[in-house]
């Protein structure tokens, strides 16, 4: 009895988690003045419920509630809630970061006229993301996946008067559509093969999926047989969806552009939560992937991580650096999924969410304060360009400290959370290469390089923004003293300080040097790491090198003792222009699409429209002829008959002269004619 009650309570709590933001979305649009308060209240409710759920479900029991929704023939689609370890940790992560972000946004968006709309969108996003996390079947997951994409579209284009923002949200939308097609096809393959989309049924305890097997090139499930390549295709389809959502090569170009949105949005959606949805999807359906798909995932993840890290080296826009860093770190997670170390992927997802969110918050604080300065003094400079910054640690000390903490975590230095999660992935990669051998040693090679590049680019940002001399006074030629630049107020400081706590390794493990003492990692760990040398050696050699790189970066960017003249080299250009992906897409895809569109436009205008116009002209002429016939012949006949009758009538009327003797004559004539007729016949 008690068990029943508690499961009922859990259902109520789970519904509260998702209903509160949705109500907030509706209420924010009605009560515009108090929209921030409504948003904060609702997301706090969600957060508290998530925490309770977390402590009820985590490592104890899986709850699955499903209600019949759609019946099509024998196929049933349920709507329901699946609460397992993965969902509850994501729930807590999303609601926690969203809560902090709401606080931060109060200050960040204070002066905007459409503030209420911002909070409404934010609530809608929280609703869809939280629902996505606890959706129990692929169909509802897909629906919320789309909704998440849509709210992302709304928020990227929040400043819709900016041409760039509008282009960026269009781009994000289109790029995500490509992935969504893949996702949908994958869903349909699963549906046709297993007659259900329920994640718990497919991959959970009853494990419908493992009851299917490959035999003689045929994929046999309890419901039917398919050629075995459909399993690979399904894996690729789902992976395509994840590629688009998590901004992996080759669909990654939307994420840097998405930085046109408000920084708080970039932080919440495009760094911490939404982009993790792709990884989340892969983790949800991980058993589906066969070896071919897994190796593809690993390669794409590795390539993306490496490529994005090299791009981040040379970007001058602070948010662009962070955007490419996000892409790179998502590549790490993909790689972890690809080498079947799902626990490391989840761990890194959680850790990265906190630290990247914090990096964006700190960057946002710098941008926010510079923007204020710009409006106050009516100056013209780019507040996101790092060339206008420098030496800010003296002016904005708290911002500098939290940014530095997050940067250390991103670089994976000891005592930080990044040390645990990143090295978890690195160790797994080394073990993976060790088992497979041969060309697989490229994985650890490149992932190590990427790891060092990460250290380099993030400390480049640290030194260029917070160390050295403040370059802005020289650029706009105003003395430093008159620039009143300081830390923002508590609305922004408090969330970032709270987040910086989560960037320490102690939060995730009792012993910040031992991966196996981390509760998140252990929560999902399926296979223990070997007691080999890798868990000791890999972090050591990565971190020794990282410290060296930090020193070199300090000399290059803070002290400027070493001058690098790489601006003209092809490597610099390749990196600065983001490997020419946008240019490539412009030339080879967009141009072609536009040309095609123009051709079709011409065809439409001249051939289709011409034909239609010809038809209309033809119809017009035919109807003119018909009208003439109608007027002159048909009407003529009718009118002629009428006229004839009229004439006859007039003529006959003339006989009725009213003169008595005329009638006599008529009578006489009639009688006579009868007589003559009788006589003649």
């Amino acid at each position: 009895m008690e068990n029943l009650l508690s499961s009922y309570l859990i259902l109520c709590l789970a519904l509260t988690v998702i209903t509160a933001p949705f109500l907030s979305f509706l209420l924010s649009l009605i009560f515009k003045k108090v929209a921030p308060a409504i948003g904060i209240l609702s997301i706090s409710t969600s957060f508290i419920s998530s925490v309770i759920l977390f402590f009820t479900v985590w490592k104890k029991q899986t709850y699955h509630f499903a209600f019949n929704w759609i019946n099509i023939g024998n196929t049933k689609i349920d709507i329901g809630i699946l609460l397992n370890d993965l969902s509850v940790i994501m729930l807590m992560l999303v609601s926690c970061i969203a809560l902090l972000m709401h606080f931060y946004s109060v200050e960040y968006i204070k002066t905007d006229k459409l503030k209420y709309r911002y909070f409404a969108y934010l609530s809608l996003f929280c609703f869809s993301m939280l629902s996505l996390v606890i959706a129990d079947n692929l169909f509802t997951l897909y629906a919320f996946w789309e909704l998440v994409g849509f709210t992302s579209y709304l928020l990227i284009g929040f400043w819709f008067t900016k041409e760039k923002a509008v282009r960026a949200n269009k781009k994000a939308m289109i790029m995500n559509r490509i992935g969504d097609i893949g996702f949908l096809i994958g869903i349909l393959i699963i549906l046709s093969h297993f007659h259900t989309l329920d994640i718990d049924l497919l991959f959970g305890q009853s494990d419908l999926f493992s009851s299917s097997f490959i035999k003689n090139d045929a994929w046999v499930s309890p419901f039917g047989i398919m050629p075995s390549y459909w399993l690979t295709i399904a894996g690729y389809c789902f992976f395509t969806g994840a590629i688009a959502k998590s901004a992996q090569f080759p669909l990654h170009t939307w994420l840097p552009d998405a930085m046109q949105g408000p920084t708080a949005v970039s932080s919440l959606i495009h760094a911490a939560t939404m982009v993790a949805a792709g990884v989340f999807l892969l983790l949800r359906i991980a058993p589906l992937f066969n070896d071919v798909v897994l190796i593809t995932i690993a390669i794409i993840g590795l390539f993306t991580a490496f490529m994005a890290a090299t791009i981040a080296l040379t970007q001058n826009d602070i948010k662009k650096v962070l955007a490419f860093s996000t892409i790179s770190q998502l590549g790490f997670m993909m790689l972890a999924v690809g080498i079947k170390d799902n626990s490391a992927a989840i761990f890194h997802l959680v850790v990265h969410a906190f630290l990247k969110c914090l990096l964006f918050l700190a960057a946002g604080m710098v941008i926010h304060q510079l923007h204020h300065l710009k409006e106050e003094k009516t100056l013209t400079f780019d507040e996101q360009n790092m060339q206008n910054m420098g030496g800010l640690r003296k002016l904005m000390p708290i911002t500098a400290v939290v940014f530095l903490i997050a940067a250390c975590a991103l670089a994976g230095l000891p005592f930080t959370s990044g040390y645990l999660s990143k090295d978890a992935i690195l160790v797994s990669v080394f073990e993976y290469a060790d088992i497979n051998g041969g060309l697989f040693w490229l994985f650890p090679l490149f992932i190590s390089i990427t790891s060092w590049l990460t250290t380099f680019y993030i400390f480049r940002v640290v030194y260029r923004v917070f160390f050295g001399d403040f370059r802005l006074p020289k650029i706009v030629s105003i003395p430093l003293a008159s620039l009143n630049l300081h830390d923002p107020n508590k609305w922004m400081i408090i969330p970032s300080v709270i987040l910086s706590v989560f960037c320490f390794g102690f939060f995730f493990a009792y012993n910040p040097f031992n991966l196996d003492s981390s509760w998140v990692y252990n929560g999902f760990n399926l296979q223990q790491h070997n007691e080999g040398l890798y868990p000791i050696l890999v972090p050591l050699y990565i971190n020794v090198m990282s410290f060296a790189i930090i020193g070199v970066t300090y000399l290059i960017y803070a002290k400027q003792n070493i001058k690098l003249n790489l601006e003209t080299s092809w490597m610099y250009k390749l990196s600065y222009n983001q490997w020419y992906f946008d240019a490539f897409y412009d030339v080879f895809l967009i141009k072609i699409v536009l040309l095609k569109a123009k051709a079709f436009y011409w065809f439409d205008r001249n051939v289709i429209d011409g034909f239609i116009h010809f038809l209309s002209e033809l119809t017009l002429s035919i109807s003119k002829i018909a009208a003439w016939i109608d007027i002159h012949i048909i009407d003529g006949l009718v009118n002629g008959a009428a006229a004839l009758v009229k004439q006859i009538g007039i003529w006959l009327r003339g006989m009725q002269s009213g003169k008595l003797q005329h009638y006599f004559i008529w009578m006489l004539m009639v009688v006579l004619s009868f007589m003559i007729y009788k006589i003649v016949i």
Partner: protein
Amino acid sequence: MIPLQHFLFIGAALFSLGLFAVITRKNAIQILMGIELMLNASILNMVAFGKYDKIDNTGQMFGLFIIVLAAASVAVALVIIMNLYKRTKNIDPNKANSLNG
């Protein structure tokens, strides 16, 4: 013995004269007189043909009937003419044409 043809000739002549009078006169009384002439012509024919029926004398009987009917119809006709005169101060039937088409 007067032959039958003579009666018929006189009857025809009388009928024609009566018809002529009915068609041409401008006076309702004269038209009435023309009608009387035509009636009389028919009576003459009846009586003339009556010689072929010496047993029942149908011709004579019809003649008498026609005389009585003619007297009655003249009475009616005169009343109509008087009414006409009262309304139009005129007995020209061609003037009484208010019902023309």
